[in-house]
């Protein structure tokens, strides 16, 4: 028994010794070569490929920097909070526009202004609306890596059968088309019943949902816009994918359960995967409302951790990923739109049929509602549900009540 114990002790000693040696060797290496960690959420293989190609290209330029891609599986914000609590977050990582201010306000992200000045990076190069979520109290905390806008996808064959030759351009046309295309098992339009799809209607009507730093809840113009969209649901000419028995709008559209859908550019790679021929559907800008055009932009930025030990290199990596060198790969892949204006021009040239996505960026509102974003979205989403499912048609009163309950 004693012998066994002694043997165990010796074993433990040897193991810890060898670990110690390995660790000290590793730190000796680090002086000559540094390792940066890049945090990204687990996405499609195609998106991972872009990042891997970008990293490979960066390594060619900076051979003394090694980059490890940290893929975060599961709930990104949950994992990120835990990584930060244990001070093991990656040096740079993805940051969605919605929770950006929540992170920034807690002071966990490095302001980039100093580095931008030092390495000559200007905000003017980026699509301007995309930066807003990452600027807090005058400081820039993230540079957008790519974005996507909402567009109208329509099934050309169904349009032909209904005698329609072009996509709808106005509200009235959208409604008429949807009515015409709703037959039997097919519904004219499908979209999610949420602020991220309904909001453009508010802006198309000249209303507002978010004003520079504060949410606007009961702008009469916005309410009117919401009502137009919600009434499409009420009349049964627009349905949620769930009501169509589909996992998401992509499935509903690919399975020909709906003739039109309002969704982002991420539909395209999905439709390719589902082997839907490219010329069987069209992509158009969202129909204009009484006050003009509007759509939504969804963007993700690269941000730097305040605790990064290699800030200059980390910033160089951000600069590369969001600059000409890295954006080239975004353009090539065509998954999302490049955040750099100059690269956007190339994108429209490479994919002429996707021009609507780039055009939308000029008048898009970015999906972002300040510090209380989650709650703001909640107020609207619940009120929309109440309207369509719960048949509570006094939208204004309902939103006001929800604001009282949720915002406090």
């Amino acid at each position, binding site marked *: 028994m004693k012998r066994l114990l002694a043997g165990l002790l010796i074993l433990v000693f040897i193991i810890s010794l060898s670990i110690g040696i390995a660790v000290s060797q590793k730190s000796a290496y680090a002086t000559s070569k540094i390792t940066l960690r890049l945090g990204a959420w687990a996405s499609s293989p195609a998106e991972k490929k872009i990042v891997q190609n970008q990293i490979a290209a960066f390594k060619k330029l900076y051979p003394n920097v090694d980059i490890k891609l940290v893929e975060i599986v599961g*709930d990104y*914000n*949950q994992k990120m*909070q*835990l990584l*930060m*609590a244990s001070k093991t977050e990656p040096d740079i990582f993805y940051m969605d526009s919605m*929770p950006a201010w*929540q*992170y920034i306000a*807690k*002071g*966990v992200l490095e302001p980039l202004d100093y580095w931008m000045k030092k390495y000559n990076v200007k905000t003017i190069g980026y699509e301007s609306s995309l930066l807003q979520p990452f600027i807090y109290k005058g400081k820039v905390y993230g540079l957008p890596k790519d974005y996507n806008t909402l567009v109208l996808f329509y099934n050309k064959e169904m349009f032909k059968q209904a005698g329609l030759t072009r996509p709808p351009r106005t509200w009235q046309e959208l409604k008429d088309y949807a009515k015409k295309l709703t037959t039997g098992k097919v519904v004219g339009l499908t979209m999610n019943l949420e602020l991220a799809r309904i909001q453009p209607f508010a802006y198309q009507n000249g209303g507002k949902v978010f004003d520079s730093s504060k949410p606007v809840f009961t702008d009469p113009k916005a309410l009117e816009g919401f009502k137009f969209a919600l009434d499409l649901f009420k009349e049964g000419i627009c349905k*949620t994918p*769930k*009501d*169509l*028995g589909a996992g998401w709008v992509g499935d509903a559209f690919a399975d020909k359960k709906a003739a039109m859908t309002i969704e982002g550019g991420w539909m395209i790679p999905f439709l390719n995967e589902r082997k839907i021929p490219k010329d069987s559907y069209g992509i158009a800008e969202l129909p204009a409302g009484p006050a003009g055009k509007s759509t939504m932009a969804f963007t993700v930025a690269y941000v730097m951790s305040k605790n990064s030990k290699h800030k200059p290199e980390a910033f160089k990596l951000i600069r590369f990923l969001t600059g000409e060198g890295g954006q080239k790969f975004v353009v090539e892949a065509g998954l999302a739109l490049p955040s750099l204006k100059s690269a956007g021009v190339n994108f429209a040239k490479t994919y002429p049929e996707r021009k609507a996505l780039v055009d939308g960026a000029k008048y898009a509102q970015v999906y972002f509602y300040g510090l209380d974003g*989650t*709650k703001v979205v*909640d107020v609207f*989403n*619940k009120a929309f*549900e*109440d309207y369509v*499912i*719960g048949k509570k048609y006094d939208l204004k009163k309902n939103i006001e009540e929800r604001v009282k*309950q*949720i915002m*406090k």
Partner: protein
Amino acid sequence: MKNKTKVQEYFTAFVMLLPYIISFFMFFAYPLAKAFIISFQEFSFLGDTPPKFVGLLNYKEALTSKMFLDSIVNTFYYSILVVPTQLIIALILAVIVNDKVKFKDFFRTTYYLPTVTSPVAVSIIFLFLYKTDGLVNQILSHIGITPRNWFNEPSFVMPAIVSVAVWGSVGFYMVTFLSGLSTIPDQLYEAAEVEGAGESTKLIKITIPLLKPMIFFNTVVSFISTLQMFDLSYIIGGSDGGPMGKAMTMVVMIYRTAFKEFNMGVASAMAFIVFGIIFILTLIQRKFFGEEMSY
């Protein structure tokens, strides 16, 4: 001399128990105490700002939050539907498979199988079954009921989740009832038969009274587990609580507050409120079923 061996014995026992003690403190006692402290603080995982003591403010915010109060109502609605249905079905199944039916081992295994299946997998299967064009609706349409989206209608989402939960966990309670049934002496039944009692009399006069400890145990366990329900609701309803928030349970609400709204303090306060609710309910049930459980 004798004392020394005693000390040695204690020491050995302590060393042997050490792995458990360490893990108990690391993964249970410490987090519990920490969460309790956090429930009185404005706490965030993000940043280096030290947590600020805010007294009972978190509890106040939790108890005045309409969404949390709604989630309590939803959870109770769920519990009240699940617990009796589940236990009655489990008891019936147990009595059946305890009898001398053919292939009873096969049935026992089959009924128990869903219990060892991951709730996530179960939820996803039922998402398909309950789809608008899913199997359930196709069968119902044959008997003239129009297809509906069960998981997307405010008044149907909870009952639909209840059906998933009952299907998924009835096996566990059946097994506990079975173990209870095997402890009931056969003489009692024989005596009852001599007295001329039928099957139903035997069930009501012998089986159920003698199963009281098992019924108590199952009720408590079932109540606690239903009040802590998370997975089904999260998969089916998402963190927004499904249609009009009708599928939002207390634990989903805690998760949402902590990781979506970055509000650890309020989330911890909610967790302790849930703890309090479950604790009080268990005490009441204990009172209700009486203290002594032997016969």
